[in-house]
């Protein structure tokens, strides 16, 4: 042990000083038994309420910023008669073929034979 090192007695004395200083600050026994300061003040309830209020406000802000969908008209409506798809022109051509009409090759309105006249079987190609 070097001369500058406090021995056990010195340590004990320093702790005793600390104890003496603390004893002045010790709350009264009866007070602690009755209720601690924190509980008396109900302090634990207030931050909980603050937290709840902050949560409600945050939710309100988030919901306020989000675009509302109430009353908005959807851009795509599947209403009978108005639905248009890219292959609709095929249906139009079928409808445009009339009985007795002979389509000309190269015509825009050309359409193959009616379905009823189409061959039911297709002869397989023969390979040489």
């Amino acid at each position, binding site marked *: 042990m070097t001369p500058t090192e406090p021995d056990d007695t010195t340590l004990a004395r320093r702790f005793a000083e600390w*104890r003496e200083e603390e004893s002045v600050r010790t*709350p009264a026994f009866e007070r602690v038994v009755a209720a601690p300061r*924190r509980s008396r003040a109900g302090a634990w309830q207030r931050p909980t309420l603050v937290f709840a209020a902050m949560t409600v406000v945050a939710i309100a802000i988030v919901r306020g910023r989000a675009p509302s969908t109430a009353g908005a008209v959807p851009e795509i409506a599947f209403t009978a008669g108005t639905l248009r798809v890219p292959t609709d022109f095929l249906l139009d051509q079928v409808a445009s073929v009339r009985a007795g009409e002979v389509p000309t090759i190269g015509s825009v309105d050309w359409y193959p034979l009616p379905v009823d006249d189409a061959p039911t079987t297709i002869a397989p190609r023969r390979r040489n």
Partner: protein
Amino acid sequence: MLALPAFDLRDELHRTHSGAFAWAVHCCRGDRDEAEEVLHVAYAKVLEGRARFEERSTFRTWFFGVIRLTAHEQRRWRWLQFTRLERWWQDTEGERDDDDRHAHAEDERIPALRAALGRLSRRQQEILHLVFYESLTIQDAANVLAMPVGTARTHYERGKARLRALLAEEPTP
């Protein structure tokens, strides 16, 4: 079975109050408000019979163990209750307790001792506090901390050596 009648229990608690509060402050890492609450809960446990003294050790040793366990329980509970927010509230509230008024008056040697103690391991702090501050034997301190006496002695010797070294480093006035 209660070893002591209720009125004796209260007297015993009153007798150990000062040391019990200091130990509670230590278990609460210096938070005096929290220590007060922990001590209140510990007193309630004893007086309501939820913690029973069975005379396996001295009353003081047993009660210090109760305080330590209560502090651990309270810390877990407090974490669930958003302690940080609570502390923030209290800090902003500017609520100054009477105890703080004495803070400026304390000897410079005491903060130095506390600071040096704070640099030790948790176990070393606990054992030195119990032995030097509370004047418990190493055996009793080991009982409070629920550890074998050999382990307690090791923590005590190492902690004491380190504390001496740290205090020797402090500048002399």
